[in-house]
């Protein structure tokens, strides 16, 4: 009887050990992604006046974009690790939205990639919540689908009322699908270990919206609020806006 009890205790002990081991394998480190929005070199501030590389003056009043499907690839195997199933809306007006906290398995990583926008599945699956809540004013109610990126402001170069410019860039299917994967090589490896926090600061340069691939001046295109070729061109421009600003490996 006593012996049996001993066996039980021992089994229980083994079980606890095994369980610990299981957790050990899944131990993760933290990675902070921080987004810094800029125009050229200067950080965005709603009160400031900027000039884009086409020589147009502008003031920013709204700047938002969706980040999703974040992946990191490890240096040794080149294997992609998908960090999160979540969708993040980076909003210049909301400080905490510019910092994304992720958990990663230990390892060395040298590349980060993410989807700029919301993948097509989420655009056709009915009402969503969280970052994808239409309440966030990033959803078209007359033509179902997410606005993947939004930039609004004023510029003397705009011929619209109050010199407004408005870019609501969306489209999730066909040739005018504006979602795209941004791939950034890290200037140095980050080493994720348990209990440590690494940080990648990513800079988003609004100037790229106007000239990265296509020349899209505010005077020629003060507004783009529907899907189509112009939206696609804007997206090809802004997909170039990200660079790794700094790194805390």
């Amino acid at each position: 009887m006593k012996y049996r009890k001993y066996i039980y205790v021992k089994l229980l002990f083994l079980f606890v050990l095994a369980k610990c081991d299981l957790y050990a394998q899944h131990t993760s480190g933290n990675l902070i992604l921080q987004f810094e929005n800029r125009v050229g070199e200067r950080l965005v501030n709603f009160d400031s006046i900027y000039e884009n590389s086409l020589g147009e003056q502008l003031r920013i009043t709204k700047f938002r974009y969706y980040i999703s499907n974040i992946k990191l690839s490890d240096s040794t195997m080149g294997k992609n690790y998908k960090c999160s199933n979540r969708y993040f809306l980076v909003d210049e007006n909301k400080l905490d939205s510019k910092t994304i906290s992720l958990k990663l398995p230990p390892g060395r990583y040298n590349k980060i990639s993410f989807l700029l926008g919301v993948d097509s599945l989420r655009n056709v699956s009915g009402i969503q919540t969280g970052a994808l809540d239409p309440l966030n004013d990033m959803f078209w109610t007359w033509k179902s689908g997410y606005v993947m990126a939004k930039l609004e402001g004023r510029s003397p170069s705009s011929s619209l009322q109050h010199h407004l410019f408005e870019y609501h860039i969306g489209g999730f299917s066909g040739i005018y699908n504006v979602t795209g994967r941004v791939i950034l090589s890290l200037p140095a490896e980050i080493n994720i270990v348990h209990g440590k926090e690494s940080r990648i600061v990513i800079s988003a340069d609004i100037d790229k919206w106007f000239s990265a691939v296509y020349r899209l001046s505010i005077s020629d295109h003060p507004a783009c609020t529907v899907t189509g070729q112009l939206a696609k061109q804007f997206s090809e421009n802004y997909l170039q806006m990200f660079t790794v600003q700094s790194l805390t490996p």
Partner: protein
Amino acid sequence: MKQNIPGEFPKPVYDFKNNPLTREGFELGRKLFYDGRLSKDGYTACASCHQQFAAFSDFQHVFSHGVNSRFTRRNAPPLFNLAWQSEFHYDGGINHIELQPLSPMTGRDEMDNTIDSILATIRADAVYRKMFRSTFGNDTINTQRMLWALAQFTGNIVSANAKYDKMKKGKAVFNDWEQQGYIIFKERCAVCHTEPLFTDFKYHNIGLAVDTFLNDFGRMVITNDKKDSLLFKTPSLRNISRTDPYMHDGRYWGLSTAINHWQTCSPSDATADSLIVNGKPLEKMEVKYLVSFLHTLLDSSLLRDPMLADPVPGNMIHGPVQ
């Protein structure tokens, strides 16, 4: 609560898999549907322009009146059998039943409200708080839950009990005119108005010249494709005798006028459907037979179903939000 799927109908597009159907959820959706406070002026509910006695269309209105007496740009469609529909609006711009209410709720010519303010109105109401709790298990009131509840109601407006349906089941007999009409219908109309839902859910240009005031080019507005100019979604013919006037802009009054379009129309556009261009005219009597048949598609039990009626008579008009 179980989804109502009439035996002859195909599998529904919307099956409530991600939005489990409950009596509580349905009742919540029903209350929302009839609540004028969801609009900017406090008077305009979903049900203002989707009236049960008109098969949830706007009875005898070419256009509907939204907030501040502003006119809509299209004729309010009737609402039934929506769970079989994968795209909404005459132009198909809305791709999911749950998303559909966002359009009238925020539309300037309709309820002209913001989601923020709608949710604030709901959260301030103790009855709603109780209903959300009993439907979803806790106090959270958000866009998703509101639209899930609405879909539980709108997705369960089912119309399948017209004389036509009874005839199909052998429980009613068509008279001569109705039978003649049915034969003509099957030959001439059923290609697009496919039984048993009486629509193919596709988009067609039936040769309606564009109204130069509205400049509504239909499907093209959504796809940006010239091929889609003046294409509009085929409406169901169920309950059609109650949804006068007809077409996306309500330009025709009376069933025979609408049918006459098919013989007088001159295809005004290169994208006009070949069925229209090559269609042969109907005889006068054939029109009359068809009208008789179309009357057999009226489901009077839908118009009177107490489950679909205003839960609190008079609830619909609340007056301005304080």
